[in-house]
Structures are given as structure tokens and as C-alpha cells.
């Protein structure tokens, strides 16, 4: 088993080389600074050990102007070098490419999932991809029975293209941070603000995305993936109007949609238990399909007694998906 995330060491983006150079330059110079303190310390502790030194031989040096100037100015010079590389790498991360030459994707982070909205394609279709991470399933002895998976949620991007992410969170949500370790970049996602992040990936592959700003119960499961594809593959998907995501064979039945959109963390499907919102057992008998569909796409409009508007996020589904998920809510299948 490899000890690092997939793609971490493969120069997966245009950032990697410069950032890694700045980091390792810093580390090696710092090792030098570290040794300049620790080596004399150990040497003196050995050389001037009490059982080797006669009282008369103890020195009296309390100043040495040359040395003092040196050990101030040399570190200042090194610090300025670090500042320079810190600053230029920051410029690299933070100088956004022109939007005209980039693919701009809207990202919404909310507890505890990422959602990506693409610009409309030639035929006006808007791809929306996103969902929650499927948590690992545990055996009784604490070992993992089934690893967690990302399901259908991933950010699909073409290779060698500037990608700009315009990120925000719903006003009622909390801070998140979009972190792609393989690309060495992250940016906080702030409710009510738009923050941006850009990258240009130059290797086809699938790279983990983690939420790096603490956001509550499932902070540790707020994963996503960036899937980098050949341009042709990407274009083929982007210009198609199917809801299917380009990689993998992801089920689109109601049960999977219910799981991947995170419904289960607030609504129990097979009981009356109130998690955050009401349990859905027997909901099909109480309400018609139209009410249930509205409850997903416009949840604040008609809230059942005892619950409040503003808690449940608004969901957008394709007509087919909406039909499937409503059917699942009604029948449990």
C-alpha cells in the first residue's frame, strides 16, 4: 500500500514543480539552520562537560560583535529568500487566468458534500454533478468491511486546460475548504462570498479532494474527486445531454440518488425517527408525488407542522432523477 494519495508525486498539475522546489529548498536550508544550532550544542555539551573542565579554564566570553552580526544577517538573508519563494508561489496559485481561456465551473460546498455546476453546453444543457461520500462500512471488530467511495460525485475536467472554480457555500451553511493535495492547492469556501481557485492539470487521473476547514459531524467524510480526462473524452461528455457522469458505471436509481445526495443523514427512509427532518416511513400514503417533488426542489414552501423553513437545502434534479427519487421515497424501492 502506498503511503500517499493517488497522484501526489506525479506532477499532476502545473503547480507541483514550483511548489515542491520552494518547499524542499526551504527544508534543506532549514536543515542547515537546525544543524548550525544543534551540532555546536551537542559538541559543547561533550567538549566542555563538567568532568573535563577545570574551574580556572572556564571562559568569560559574553560578546562577539562579528559573530552576532553574522548570526543575525545570514538568517535575515535566508528568511528573505523564503519570503521570495513563498510570495512567488502564492502569485502562481492566486493569479487567475483569463476567464475567456478557461473553463469556469461553479462549486458549492455544503454540509457535507460538494456540488459542481458546469456552464451550459451547445444545446443548453447544464451538467450538475455532486453528492456525498459513501462512508466506509465497518465490521464488528472495528476493521473495514467496505471502503468508502465517492459514487457519482467528481469534478470532471479536461487535461491541459485552465480550470477556474468559483466557489461558495449556502448562506445558512458553514466554512469549508476545497483542498486538492495532488495539486498542492486549497481555498476556503465562505458562505455569502465567492472565492476562487484555479489549476491546470496535466496528467489524466483521479485525484482526491478533501475538506480542510472544520465543518462538523461529517467533516472527515466531505471528500470529492477531481477526474482529469483527455480533452476529447471530456468534450464528448460535456456536449452530451445525458445525466450520466463520464467515468464509471454509476447507478441512477432512486436509492442511489437518495444516498448520494445525503438525504439519509437527515431523513430516515424506513422509520418515523426524526434525525433532523421527519422520517419518511409511509410518506407516500400521506402526500402525492407532486408535493414530494416540490418538497425537494422548493423545500421552504410548504413545511410540515413542527418543522421550520430554512433548514433543508434546495435540490435540483433532472426530471428523470426526480421521478426516481420520489418513487423511492414513496415505496422504499
Amino acid at each position, binding site marked *: 500500500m502506498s503511503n500517499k494519495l493517488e497522484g501526489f508525486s506525479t506532477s499532476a498539475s502545473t503547480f507541483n514543480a514550483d511548489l515542491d522546489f520552494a518547499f524542499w529548498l526551504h527544508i534543506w536550508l532549514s536543515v542547515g539552520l537546525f544543524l548550525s544550532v544543534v551540532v*555546536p*550544542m551537542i559538541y559543547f555539551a561533550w567538549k566542555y562537560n563538567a568532568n573535563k573542565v577545570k574551574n580556572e579554564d572556564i571562559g568569560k566570553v559574553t560578546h562577539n560583535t562579528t559573530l552576532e552580526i553574522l548570526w543575525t544577517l545570514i538568517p535575515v538573508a535566508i528568511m528573505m529568500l523564503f519570503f521570495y519563494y513563498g510570495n512567488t508561489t502564492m502569485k502562481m496559485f492566486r493569479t487567475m487566468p483569463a476567464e475567456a481561456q478557461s473553463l469556469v465551473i461553479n462549486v458549492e460546498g455544503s454540509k457535507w458534500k460538494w456540488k459542481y455546476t458546469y456552464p451550459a453546453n451547445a444545446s443548453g444543457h447544464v451538467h450538475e454533478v455532486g453528492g456525498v461520500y459513501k462512508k466506509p462500512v465497518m465490521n464488528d471488530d472495528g476493521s473495514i468491511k467496505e471502503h468508502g467511495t465517492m459514487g457519482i460525485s467528481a469534478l470532471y475536467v479536461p487535461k491541459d486546460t485552465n480550470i477556474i472554480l468559483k466557489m461558495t457555500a449556502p448562506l445558512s451553511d458553514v466554512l469549508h475548504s476545497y483542498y486538492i493535495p495532488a495539486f498542492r492547492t486549497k481555498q476556503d469556501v465562505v458562505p455569502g462570498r465567492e472565492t476562487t481557485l484555479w489549476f491546470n492539470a496535466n496528467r489524466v487521473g483521479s485525484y482526491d479532494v478533501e475538506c480542510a476547514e*472544520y465543518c462538523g459531524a461529517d467533516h472527515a467524510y466531505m471528500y470529492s474527486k477531481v477526474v482529469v480526462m483527455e480533452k476529447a473524452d471530456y468534450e464528448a461528455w460535456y456536449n452530451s445531454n445525458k445525466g450520466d457522469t463520464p467515468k464509471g458505471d454509476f447507478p441512477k436509481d432512486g436509492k442511489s440518488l437518495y444516498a448520494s445526495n445525503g438525504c439519509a443523514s437527515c431523513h430516515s427512509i424506513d422509520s418515523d425517527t426524526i434525525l433532523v427532518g421527519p422520517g419518511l416511513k409511509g410518506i407516500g400514503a400521506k402526500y402525492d408525488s407532486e408535493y414530494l417533488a416540490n418538497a425537494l426542489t422548493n423545500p421552504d414552501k410548504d413545511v410540515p407542522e413542527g418543522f421550520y423553513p430554512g433548514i433543508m437545502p434546495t435540490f435540483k434534479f433532472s426530471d428523470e432523477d426526480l421521478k426516481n427519487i420520489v418513487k423511492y421515497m414513496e415505496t422504499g424501492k
Partner: protein
Amino acid sequence: MSKTYFDETHCAIGHPKSTFMQWMLTVDHKRIGLMYAAVMFTFFFVAVFTALLMRFELFAPGQQFIDGPTFNQAFTLHGVIMIFLFIIPGIPAIFGNIVMPLMIGAKDVSFPRLNWATFWLYILGCCVALASLFIGEGVADTGWTFYAPYSLNTDTNVIMALTAAFILGFASILTGLNFLVTIHRLRAPGMTFFKMPLFVWGIYATAWIQLLATPVIGITLILAVMEKYFGIGIFDPSKGGDPVLFQHLFWIYSHPAVYLMILPAFGIMSEIIPTFSRKEIFGYRTIALSSASIAGIGYLVWGHHLYTSGMSDVAKSVFSFLTFFVAIPTGVKFYDWIATMYQGKIVLSTPMIWGLGTIITFAIGGITGITITMIGVDIHLQDTYYSVAHFHYAILGGVVFLMFAGMHYWFPLITGKMYKETHAKAAFYIQFVGFNLLWFPMFIAGWYGMPRRYFDYLPEFQIYHQVSFYGALIFVSGLIYMFWTFYRGWTKGEPSGTNPWNATTLEWHMPSSPPPLENHSKVPYVDFNPYEYHHGEPVVKFNYETMQRID
């Protein structure tokens, strides 16, 4: 035998007969310091075991012992206790109280009753923090940073945690005020600022930070409470507020606060190094003034916590540039300490070993702090285990290790007894090994992208968590061993005499060991530098009855 401060005391109110009430009402700075130590180390162990619980959960990926929300409460409890109850007040409240007045030849702090009241204010803060464990939805799950808007939305007991931090902040301000006045007004005649021991300089710089920076956190916490109760809409984006503003306000205090932690710790190092090198300290003035300049620059660097939060690039550059200038005076101190050892006569007693060990761990903590001062690199490492490891190397491997060094150094002064050095040294080596095993793997995990505050993680990171776990076990056993050694030393140790380390500063020139109620018999006249040695022996000698020099 003459009476020591354990036998008699002055009280804030009346003259109680019972020993218990005498301790509760005591205004003696030494007794108050000891009581702080007792309370703080109790909390310290609570926080250590909370951390151990987290390490158990993190041993393997998936959920084994505790679920996500419990883990979140655990790291919040760990952080709040360690930061607000232990490490911020720590060295000033314990050694600032016990040792600083002795070092400047004072009979007590300037306002002994205020000192007593401050202690009980601190206890009140602790009680409120403890109560938040059991009241309502349980202890806050926000992390010790209380970032908005999460802290505004969560159901857990954030209000009580904020209130506790507010009360503890007040205790901190009053301690700082008391020490500032004491250092300005109660130095023995002849003791100019540049004749003060360097620990007093550390406490002095810290006291200014306590006094000037703490009100900012007070304001911030009040705003957060008002936001939560009345929805005033300063931080809450759903009401038009700005959550990033909270981060600015929070770090305007909390960054100076880390210097507030480290400066008195550096002071302890500056006492130990010359004493166990039997030699005057190298560059006294630069060490003293570097403390002051760290305290000064420390106010202007808070923004380096916000490189990825949403702030202009110009602001990032300025904060980064200024932050590098904290590294310079810190580095100068290190070189001064090493230069002090040059041509000395180095006695590797337990306090010195702790001191030298800390030079290694704090150097790593400091240097890795420089890593994340580089903005671009921090964009990758922010909120990963790299920051966690850096912080613990600096604070545990710096402040707490030096606090332990100080405990070994002043133990004979405080108790009049000596612990067994063989046990104490063994405990050091165990902790040193455990510490590095515990934290170093986190640098690697952080560089590879392991985010902090995750109760479950991707299987790729398992090996680092496992090494950390074994390191944690070793470290905690060393910790328990050390306290057991102290306990044995206090109950069964040999009497230490008044100056077991051949030290020069005034706290070692006491008429009795442990010191009597009002410290020195007479106020000494200070016409000497704090670390004067000649041929390995302290130059200045006193008749402890009259406090006249007899050298």
C-alpha cells in the same frame, strides 16, 4: 527550624485557623503559584487523556471507539483546556507567581489581594468550562478557535465555553497588570532593568501582551455571544455578517498569545543555560530586547493564519514579510544560548537536559513554522497535520518542555527537597523519544495531504497514525513517570539546601529552604549582574540573615 511558607501565611480575609482555609484565602504568591500548578496539571492530564482517546480512534481508519461528533467534542475539549486553562496562564501563573517576586527581591507581588482574587477568577473560569461538559448539549464541538459561522449554528454549549474563555481572559489581564506593576515598582534597590534576570524579562514582555492583547479576545467573545443570542449579524453571513472578520479578531489576540506562551518559557531557558554552564550568559541585552521585540512584532502578524481564508494578496504578502521577522530575534536567542555554553563547564543535570532537549524540539517547531510562513507553501499545508505537528513541536516541545525544565530547576526551591536525578533523567529520555515518534510522522502525513480534525481518514495515512499512536503511549508513560518522580521527591527526597544548583539569581539566596513567608530576610541591594560567575562559582554571596554581600 525556621518557619517556611508552608507553615504560615497571610490571608485575604481574617486569620483562619484551619490549614485548609489558610490555603483558600492565602495571598502569598508562592502558595498561589502552587495552587495554580495543582489545578492546571489536573486539567493538563484531563486534556492529555482526551488526546489519547483521539489517538486510539485514529489508530485505524474507520470508526472504532468514538463517532465523529464525539471526536469533534474531544479535540475541542483538548484544545480549550490546553490553550485557555493550561498553557496561556501556565508559566506566568505558576513560575511568574512563585519565582518572579523572589528574583527581584520583593516580598510579594504589588497587589497580593488582587492576586488572590485573580486565582479565584481563574477557578471560576475553570468551573464554567467544566460545567459546559454536563449542561445542555455538552461541550462545544467547534475546535478551540470557535470559528463563525459554525460556532453560531451548532447546538452544543458554545456559549459557556466562550464565557469561560472570557473569564479566564480577565484573570489573564489582571495577572499581567499585577506583574507589570510588580516589576516596575518592587525591584530591589539597584536592580535596573538590565540587571533583572532574563526570566523576569520574559514575564515582563508577556505581561504587556496579557494586558494589551487579551481585551481583543474579550470583545470578540462578547460579539460572538451577542451574535448567538440576539443575532446582531456581525459574523453570521445569513444576516449579512462576515465570518472572516471573526478570524481576524480571533487571531489579533490568539497569535500574540502564542508569544505570550513562549516568552516566559524562553526566560526559563535563559536561567538554566548559564547556571549549568557556570558562566555568564552570552548577549544578555540582545536576549532581553529580543523578548521585547518578539512581543512587539507579535501583534502585527495575525494574518498569517488566514492565507487561505479569503484576504487580499497584498495583505498576505505583508503579513508573511512581518512574520519572518519574528524568526530573527528567536534565532538570535538560540545562538546566544549556544554561545553561552562555549568554554563553559557544562553540568548535565536534569533541568539542563530538559533545556538542551528543548533546543532540539523547539528548533524543529520554529523552523516548521517558517515553512508555513511561506504563503504558497502554506496554501498546501494550511489545516493539515503539518500545522498540527508544527504547533505541538513549538508549544509542547517548546513551552511545556521548558515548563518541565523549570519544574525540575525550581523544584528544590519550592519544596526544599530533591528528586532522584536518575529517575528524572530517564523520564526525560522516554518523553523525548515518545514525543518525536508522536509528532514527527505528522509532518510527513501533512505534506502528503492529511487534513486536521478528521476522525476518520483515507487508508493511505494509516502508517503515520500508527507510529504516532505508539509515540503517544511512550510519551504519556514518560509523563506519568516524571510526575511520580516529583511525588517521590517531595515526600521522600533529601533536603536540597537553599542553592543546590550553584545558581546566582536572588531566588537562591533564601534564609531557609523552602523560603519563609516574606521571602528574603532583608531587601538586598543589587549592584551586580544576574549571572556573575568566577571560576565556576557564583561571585555574589550573601549573609542570608542580613542580606549583606560577603564576597
